[in-house]
């Protein structure tokens, strides 16, 4: 039997953006239905260990999210995918894969990002060599408290490579993913804290320390932790006879090609529009470049879309850091409130 839910706002995606927006809308007295396709809430935060720049534990945040969603007026459904959204007169109709129909006055898309698939950068041999892992796999190692290299033993030398899947026409992504540079700095420090004797080399094209305390953290990683930074993009990774990883790059400041053997290569994978973001944007005609959802006006109405009542927030629009995505969620709350009170 078909189930119909009537609500003020349907929020799609219970990552940081969706949770913060839903929580604040509910506190304003609106009826909010929050949908998450995964079984647990938290989105991509679930895959991380600690967050830059102050090393806050992701678990603490997840705990906070858990507390936020018990607010009045907010109903959360996990394991439910919103497959279709469309406008019907003054209402929005969303349908889910569980056969539910949600009738709402407004919809907030907070469908987030997906990590870049490192297989596409074939030259790094991801999926072929054990010693080549992604930043998310490294987060998993940090969560378990154990770092191991290609031979399963404690690594002596680790390379971190920035811009994997970002700023790269070869994979169709010309944009910067914004979070990887500072995350690489964070990794450098985390490695040195667990393995003080390990040598850490961070390869970069530009280091973009755009947030508060990022530059300071970068400096600290050099001064206090001795993390090495080499300006140059790794061009090739291959496996040596003793199962380590051989890298080729140019030290562009030295102007010489270099070769280096490491026990672990961490690929800082970029941010791409998630499948839900792409699908729902395509359905509603709001898909912008690279599959991200496009706002009505970057400078004037960045949470609006071309459709009144359909709002977007967070990394479904473009790469954001955690503080940025949460700020964007709060901004969306104000815009939605204005819309529902006919103030726009």
């Amino acid at each position, binding site marked *: 039997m078909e189930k119909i839910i009537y609500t003020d706002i349907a929020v799609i995606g219970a990552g940081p953006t969706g949770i913060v927006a839903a929580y604040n809308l509910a506190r304003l007295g609106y009826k909010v239905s929050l949908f998450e396709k995964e079984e647990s809430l938290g989105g991509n935060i679930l895959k991380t260990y600690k967050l830059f720049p102050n090393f806050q534990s992701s678990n603490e945040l997840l705990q906070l999210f858990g507390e936020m969603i018990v607010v009045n007026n907010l109903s959360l459904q996990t394991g439910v995918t919103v497959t279709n959204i469309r406008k019907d007169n003054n209402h929005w109709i969303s349908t889910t894969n569980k056969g539910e129909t949600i009738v709402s006055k407004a919809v907030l898309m907070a469908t987030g990002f997906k990590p870049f698939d490192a297989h596409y950068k074939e030259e790094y041999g991801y999926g072929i060599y054990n010693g080549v892992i992604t930043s998310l796999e490294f987060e998993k190692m940090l969560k378990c408290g154990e770092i191991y290299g290609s031979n399963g033993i404690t690594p002596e030398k680790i390379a971190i490579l920035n811009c994997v899947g970002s700023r790269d026409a070869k994979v169709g992504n010309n944009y910067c993913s914004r979070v990887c540079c500072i995350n690489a700095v964070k990794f450098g420090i985390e490695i040195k804290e667990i393995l003080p004797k390990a040598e850490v080399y961070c390869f970069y094209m530009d280091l973009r320390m755009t947030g508060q305390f990022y530059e300071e953290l970068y*400096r600290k990683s*050099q*001064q206090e932790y*001795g993390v090495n930074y080499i*300006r140059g993009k790794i061009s090739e990774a291959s496996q040596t006879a003793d199962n380590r990883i051989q890298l*080729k790059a140019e*030290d562009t*400041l*030295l102007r*010489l*090609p*270099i*070769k*280096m*053997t490491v026990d672990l290569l961490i690929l800082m994978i970029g941010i791409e529009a998630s499948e839900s973001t792409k699908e729902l944007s395509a359905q509603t005609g709001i898909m912008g470049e690279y599959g991200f959802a496009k706002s009505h006006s970057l400078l004037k109405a960045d949470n609006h879309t071309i459709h009144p009542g359909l709002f977007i927030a967070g990394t479904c629009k473009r790469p954001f850091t955690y503080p940025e995505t949460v700020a964007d969620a709060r901004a969306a709350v104000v815009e939605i409130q204005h819309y529902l009170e006919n103030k726009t």
Partner: protein
Amino acid sequence: MKNFGFKISASRQLDMDTIQSDLYEKLIQLEPTAKRCLMCGACAATCTAAEINGFNFRYCHLLMKRGILDNLAKELSKCMLCGKCYMVCPREINTRSIILKMKALMTETTPKHYSL
């Protein structure tokens, strides 16, 4: 051994696994501010000697870091120790101290006439 009229070209690739890093290790112990260099090049841009004799503090620092010591002593001798670089460094690196320490370290490995 036969001569075919040509030689096998030497590789320009720097093998980071085998570089001589002991001098640089000593340097950053003696002058830890070296560790936070950004390689921005402000030092080389403002350098009085650079325009005349091609001295480049940034590059000399990097050469020692990468263990390329062949011409380093000679390059270091081009510095006039005026200290202008210290005034422009955004990371407050004690450049003059680094020059003096690098020179001292190089005397252990190079002929006397390049020493202080």
